[in-house]
């Protein structure tokens, strides 16, 4: 059996899934100020009276790093960046311990200016005296030649607990994003390490010594050891938990919008033939733009508990939440109250819901029922409008070949899958308004935790080859080799798949779960002086986000259970 745990803003959902489907489910209130306690309580409740030997592993999606970023509570970290010509790296400052240094490398990987070891030593001394234990190093074009980052890392290593090198974290181009990403990894590292070591220790004390997996922003997982090297990958795992919770139910030959309607927000993403769409460069969080692989997810500040207000005759919903619905003792009316007024929800104080909506009805010159309908409709319409905006943005993405431009692949969803607490109440109206076949996901209120439990381990490999220079480079894998002039894209793909397989297994993937594909393959003739002098090859491969093998049996059990519930 597998434990899946997803920390949400209001609730933390924990499930135990196995051959018999959903074996157990638990909801505990999330205490953001005591996240460890929340997670531990969840794990204790879900494992109560379960023989430890029957649990194979646990997958966790927490808001630990996301909260630290959003609430500006990141521990200090040193950053050493070498930019060379271009935009002044001062523009990308991450905090007080940020040091632009000399040294530069050009786009082909040629060294333009060497590293000044003395300069680095001096900075190291300064950082040490200020008590900084963790440092990130980024040089421009380190993904074309990591030598400078490696050299600086060697100088720093003896003096610090941990040094993170930019090219190891992502093979993509974007110096500013590499700086942000490396900083986040460096800064989150001590928080992440302490938290999950404590989780492991607590489980151990209960006699549970199982592998721990951590959900990433791309909807895949990584094992605990990998997460220590790439703690930044754990940010924004919340939306990916939801999306992965809907994957099993998405049609295989259609495009689907997955929507998780929560208390405060609705998160959404697109599934193409059952595989979630990834964001082109990397996720953005707070003021950080990163190279962290993530789902192309969108969030809108509308959920079941969003504050509903009237200003003149203008009705607004969200983007904030002041508390639970009035029907549950909250302070302001919400879409949930509208559902109470409409008698779609029970087990709460309908009278208080009516009281909450009355002033709105008055301002709009409607009956309370009509006002409730208006509120509910507006919530649905705004959610759908933002889904449309998401689709437009995806379809506006520039392409760089004539073939792609003319074939003009456009995402055209035909289905919506809804999950989250209020899912069953929204499904029908969303379908009427959108015209898309709309369904709620079985076990909708804990589908996110089920998705976390069943997600496979994912990873990506980028490969760059230049036969003129005779080099092949997979920067994030620390892989570099000499190649012959007759090296081709086919060779690059072969080597790339080898590296990808190794990386996935090293990150905790089961060899049965390596569903790999090519994200990008480009090959250019290099011509110098009107003569063909070599080939420039770029290849990008991934293990796709998806569910572990054996999920089908578990899911079909869950479906049966949910049918029985109804």
């Amino acid at each position: 059996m597998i434990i899946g745990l997803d920390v949400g803003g209001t609730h933390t959902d924990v499930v135990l899934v196995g051959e018999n489907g959903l074996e157990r489910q638990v909801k505990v209130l999330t205490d953001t100020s005591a996240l460890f306690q929340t997670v531990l309580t969840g794990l204790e409740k879900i494992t109560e009276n379960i023989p430890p030997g029957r649990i194979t592993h646990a997958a966790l999606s927490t808001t630990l790093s996301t909260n630290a970023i959003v609430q500006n509570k990141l521990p200090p970290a040193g950053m050493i960046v070498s930019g060379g010509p271009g935009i002044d790296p001062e523009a990308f400052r991450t905090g007080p311990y940020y040091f632009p240094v000399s040294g530069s490398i050009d786009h082909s990987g040629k060294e333009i200016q060497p590293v000044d070891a003395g300069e680095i030593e001096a900075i190291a001394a300064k950082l040490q005296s200020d008590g900084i234990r963790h440092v990130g190093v980024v040089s421009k074009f380190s993904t074309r030649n990591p030598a400078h980052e490696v050299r600086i890392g060697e100088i720093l290593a003896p003096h610090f607990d941990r040094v993170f090198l930019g090219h190891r974290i992502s093979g993509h181009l974007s110096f500013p994003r590499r700086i942000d990403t490396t900083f986040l990894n460096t800064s989150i590292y001590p928080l992440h390490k302490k938290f999950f070591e404590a989780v492991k220790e607590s489980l151990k004390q209960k006699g549970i010594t199982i592998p721990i997996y951590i959900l990433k922003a791309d909807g895949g997982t990584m094992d605990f050891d990998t997460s220590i090297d790439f703690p930044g990958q754990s940010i924004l795992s919340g939306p990916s938990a939801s999306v992965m919770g809907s994957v099993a139910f998405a049609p295989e030959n259609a495009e689907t919008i997955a929507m998780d309607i929560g208390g405060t927000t609705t998160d959404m993403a697109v599934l193409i033939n059952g595989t979630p769409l990834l964001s082109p460069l990397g996720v953005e969080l707070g003021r950080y733009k990163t190279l962290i692989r993530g789902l192309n997810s969108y969030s809108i500040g509308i959920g079941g508990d969003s504050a509903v207000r009237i200003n003149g005759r203008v009705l607004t919903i969200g983007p904030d939440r002041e508390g639970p619905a009035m029907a549950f003792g909250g302070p302001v009316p919400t879409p949930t109250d509208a559902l109470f007024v409409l008698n779609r929800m029970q087990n709460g104080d309908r009278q208080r819901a009516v009281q909450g909506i009355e002033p709105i009805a008055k301002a709009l010159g409607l009956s309370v029922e009509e006002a409730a309908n208006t509120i509910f409709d507006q919530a649905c319409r705004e959610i759908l409008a933002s889904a449309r905006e998401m689709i437009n943005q995806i379809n506006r993405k520039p392409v760089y070949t004539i073939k792609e431009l003319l074939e003009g692949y456009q995402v055209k969803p035909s289905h919506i899958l809804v999950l989250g607490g209020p899912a069953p109440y929204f499904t029908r109206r969303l379908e009427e308004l959108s015209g898309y076949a709309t369904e709620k996901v079985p076990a909708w209120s804990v589908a996110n935790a089920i998705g976390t439990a069943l997600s496979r381990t994912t990873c990506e490999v980028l490969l760059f080859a230049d036969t003129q220079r005779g080099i092949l480079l997979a920067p994030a894998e620390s892989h570099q080799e000499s190649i012959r002039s007759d090296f081709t894209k086919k060779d690059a793909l072969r080597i790339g798949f080898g590296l990808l397989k190794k990386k996935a297994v090293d990150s905790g993937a089961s060899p049965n779960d390596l569903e790999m594909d090519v994200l990008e393959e480009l090959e250019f003739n290099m011509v110098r002086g009107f003569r063909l002098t070599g080939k420039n090859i770029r290849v990008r491969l991934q293990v796709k986000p998806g569910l572990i093998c054996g999920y089908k049996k578990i899911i079909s059990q869950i479906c049966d259970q949910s049918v029985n519930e109804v």
Partner: protein
Amino acid sequence: MLKAKHKTGLVFFPAYDWAISATHPEREERLLYTQDQVLEEGLLDIEGIIEFKPDLIEVKDVQRVHFCVPDELSVMTKSHFISAGGAKTIARAVLEKNIERGFALVRPPGHHAMRVVHGGRGFCNVNNEAIMIEYMRKEYGVDRVAIVDTDCHHGDGSQDIYWHDPDTLYISLHQDGRTLYPGSGFPDELGGPTAAGATLNIPLPPYTSEEGFLFVIKEVILPVLEEFKPEIVVNSAGQDNHFTDPITNMNFSAQGYADLTRILKPDIAVLEGGYSIEGALPYVNVGVILAMAGIDYTKVKEPGYDHEKLRQSLQITRVIEQTCKVVLENWRNREEIRRRMQADKKFDERRRSIFYDTDGLHETQNETLKICHECSGALKIVSRCDTGNSILAVHIPRKACKTCRELGYSWYESADPKSNNMIALQDRTTDTYQVRQKKDLKR
């Protein structure tokens, strides 16, 4: 956090699957390293720099500008529809005020393509800027436009298209035609009798460097623009003046290009040539984009750049100063020059021979312009190409008077079908293009 002072739009279309031929300078690889540099610098993440997907132009957009023989689809590939489409996308975004300025980083280029097109010349088949400008005129009612062509080669195609148009100022600075393709663009090329002075050419000696280029911009181009008062300034932004360019002989730099852009403040820039794909383009383009957006670019420097070493000689400075003097004088005397050229003539004739280096074709043209005092005059072109194709083409300008319009139609209707394979009419007053006859045309 970096923020653009001027909201800037970009269309980046490197056409990674298109080349004239495998080892041609205009090949797949051309913008690859530029893309690497733009991505690594993170330009597209800067607030106020927005990337757009290019639109495709339509055949009717081409027909506003060109007479394509035998037809548009035979002389254009898909890449031309996208490249000109990229310029159109930027124009639309500027005129709809979604952006303040924009740069179409597209290939293939277009400034060697003339009004009549039998094939490719100077790596160009259709004129991206002209197609864009006429689209702006049609869709947005734009009237006065200036093109400042800073490609190293003389933009003889743009010059040809706007030769008789007093509302389009075409200024080119380029390497002296005695030393470089296409061998034209001398200061005495000023435009036709109804538009003289709206074409200005400033040939520069080989090895002209930053100070020469910036001198011309400040001393000639800015004052002329000030007087001409265009609604839109378009920069045909060739990047082949760079000191590392393999097919030219100039000493310009990334800093110089960025300075030029900052001083010129074009509303729209459209990429033209530039073939130093590793040593120049990545840096020049980053410099130009930053300059357009109003962001500091002073640290954008290409390897090997040495301001002192690139300095031009005193002799070059003198030649440029002298040329500028002549050009400014012509500009000031343009009314007088027009009068002198018109004399008492009813018609003006021009015979030319045009070489298509890219496709290896040769064309001869006889042009007849009605000298009109009400408008810029109806234009008739009889063109014969060594493909065997010939065309009689009639162009009725945008602001044609009734007489010229009628004359244009009578030329078109009375043209001898036996002596021309193709007879076509471009009536810009009604935005129509028609072909009366098409026979025995070779493709």
